[in-house]
């Protein structure tokens, strides 16, 4: 392969990547801010995370604090897991249609996985306490 062929191929790959990047940005812009939320059954604790799972909002009530630090920490951990899965599901649904099978694998590797219908998405009601 001559150098010029190699350059042409490299340029084609770069162009494809650029196009995919622009498409992905457009889709994400249309979808708005992607986040995942989860709350305890009584609404005493609400947690919101970004696509990768970073906490963006933690709302607590005084009632939630009455159960003590350890319980609150465990509840927030549990809720953040659920919220992260929901954010990953949204991210997957926005980007997967545009990427095709190869891209779907990439998304899964990045932690953006769809939540299947029969998945238990709800945080367990017991052990999350609060009233």
């Amino acid at each position: 392969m001559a150098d010029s062929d190699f350059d042409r191929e490299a340029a084609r790959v770069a162009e494809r990547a650029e196009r995919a990047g622009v498409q992905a940005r457009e889709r994400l812009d249309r979808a708005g801010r992607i986040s995942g939320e989860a709350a305890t059954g009584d609404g005493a604790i609400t947690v919101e995370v970004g696509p990768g799972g970073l906490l963006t909002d933690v709302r607590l009530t005084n009632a939630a604090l009455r159960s003590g630090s350890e319980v609150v920490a465990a509840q927030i951990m549990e809720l953040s897991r659920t919220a992260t899965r929901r954010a990953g599901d949204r991210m997957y649904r926005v980007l997967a249609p545009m990427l095709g099978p190869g891209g779907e694998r990439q998304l899964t590797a990045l932690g953006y996985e769809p939540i299947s219908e029969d998945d238990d998405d709800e945080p367990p009601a017991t052990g999350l306490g609060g009233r």
Partner: protein
Amino acid sequence: MVEQVPIARTTRQLIEETRARQDALAQVQGLMAQATGTAHDDDATVEVTVDARGKLLRLRLAPNAVNRGADRLGSLIVEVAQSAMREATQNSYNKVALLLGEEMTYLIERLSGMPAPARTEGVDSGLTVEEFQRRRDERLAGQRRNVPVPARIPQPADDGWESFDPATLRSDR
């Protein structure tokens, strides 16, 4: 600086180099997945560990954390998580730089749109969560729903030099 060298490589060499680079890049994802960062507030009432994407791995609240009140504790946890993520980001780039070298790491930072905190201008790595929060509160003053700018509770006098904010100096700008 990139030195300009005449290209005198065979196609086979180019393919081998490309393959080696692909192998290295394939490891990047794994390295970044392993990176974690931990941060805590000044009083160590909240300690958070996250991975490089920000996912919460561990949250420790000291027994007296609940005394901070519901609103304050909620926002403090978020702020500490964000500090922890900056640590994790730096940690992941440090690992990647060991594998790929500084130049390639800089390229990845630019592609990802997430500069390594150590390279981010204006980010003082010694910024405490409290100070970060105070500046954020100032920025958000008036914008935030139902949260009046929290009155800054005066810290005890033993704060010392760590809490000194150079931004209060007129010459800091």
